[in-house]
């Protein structure tokens, strides 16, 4: 399976956008997009972890025994998350406080474990790092976009500069996150002319880490597969 480097990189940004097409990592997407800068910060932090976890796991793939690969991936990812956590705390304390619990929760972000399992464990280190970068950029762009929309509507400002005089406060709190996310997914469905709509029945069974988390087993026992 040889793909050229550019298509690996752009794959994650548009065609397989992790948030809007694959619908992964919904928790940080909804929670950290109250402002553009928070969304951007979360995206960059996750991208850093994703690039290095893909690179390391790809390098280690011949060493890691198949049966304990998931715990190994989790240790690698958790180690990287700890490094990122310390860096953010040292150099961007405001962002650290704004992201709160969602910074350590990058560990359980399905995008990262999903790419480790689906891509990095089968491809060369360079390709894996590029895939991580592309996916991370797709994640970051989406978060930035959602953050901008919610900040503009919810508090009437962009990057903290006031623009609108009558903000609609609900976009800044929890329900607004769901509304904006729902509308963006619908928009992607519209733009891709329903190509992404094949994903319309959202359930854990469609998630690429389903084999990891045992959801496919669940779906089968419920007679849904």
């Amino acid at each position, binding site marked *: 399976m040889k793909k050229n480097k550019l298509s690996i990189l752009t794959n994650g940004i548009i065609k397989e956008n992790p948030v809007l097409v694959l*619908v992964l990592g919904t928790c940080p997407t909804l929670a950290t997009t109250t402002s553009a800068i928070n969304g951007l910060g979360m995206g960059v932090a996750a991208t850093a972890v994703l690039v290095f976890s893909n690179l390391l796991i790809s390098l280690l793939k011949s060493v890691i025994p198949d049966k304990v690969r998931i715990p190994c991936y989790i240790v690698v990812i958790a180690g990287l998350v700890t490094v990122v956590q310390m860096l953010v705390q040292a150099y961007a304390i405001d962002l650290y406080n704004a992201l709160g619990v969602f910074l350590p*929760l990058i560990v*359980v972000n399905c995008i990262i474990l999903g790419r480790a399992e689906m891509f990095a464990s089968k491809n060369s280190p360079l390709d894996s790092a590029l895939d991580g970068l592309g996916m991370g950029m797709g994640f970051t762009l989406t978060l930035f976009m959602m953050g901008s929309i919610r900040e503009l509507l919810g508090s009437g400002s962009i990057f903290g500069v006031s623009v609108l005089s009558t903000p609609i406060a609900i976009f800044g709190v929890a*329900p*607004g996150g*769901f509304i904006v996310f*729902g509308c963006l997914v619908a928009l992607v469905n519209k733009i891709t002319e329903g190509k992404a709509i094949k994903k319309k029945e959202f359930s854990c069974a469609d998630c690429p880490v389903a084999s990891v988390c*045992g*959801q496919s087993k*669940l779906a089968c026992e419920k007679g849904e597969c």
Partner: protein
Amino acid sequence: MKELMIILFSAILVNNYPLSKFLGICPFLGVSKKLDSAVGMSAAVIFVMLMATAATWPIYDMLLEPNGLAYLQTIVFILVIAALVQLVETILKKYVPALYKALGVYLPLITTNCAVLGVTVLNITENYNFVESMVNSLGAGLGFMLAMVLFAGVRTRLENIDAPKYFQGLPITLLAASLVSASFIGFSGVVDGLFM
């Protein structure tokens, strides 16, 4: 006692995990299609949250904190939770088959559920003592169950509506979730008044 009740009801209603804090969205959207699987999943989440808190709080308080290893929190917690879930699954399968049958299928997928890791980390950041942590975890789990059951009800109605083409499936589910979430905003401020 009053403080514990405030922690419990705040976690259930005001800081509802999936609807206000956005923790555990994947199972909230993925397993809420049928009422029985929603209840089974939430019961497993409550169970694992309590077990995970009972394991991680003492580890942090007695091992990591006194030895200046608090920065290892994330790695240690996720590994403890993953190992614990595996262990519980094996034990239940062998000794309590009835409970395993009810919860077993949901257990492995809880390892990567951010609500479980989230509640253990939040217990530490909020500086709760052991009892408060357990109560907070119970509240978080019950709040998750409440949200799941309510949303399962909403989704059975959603099945019969005629949504615009591009809104079918996930988008309309998210819009419905936003309405359920909006109703929970009404609870903010209620809890402090309840136990005056």
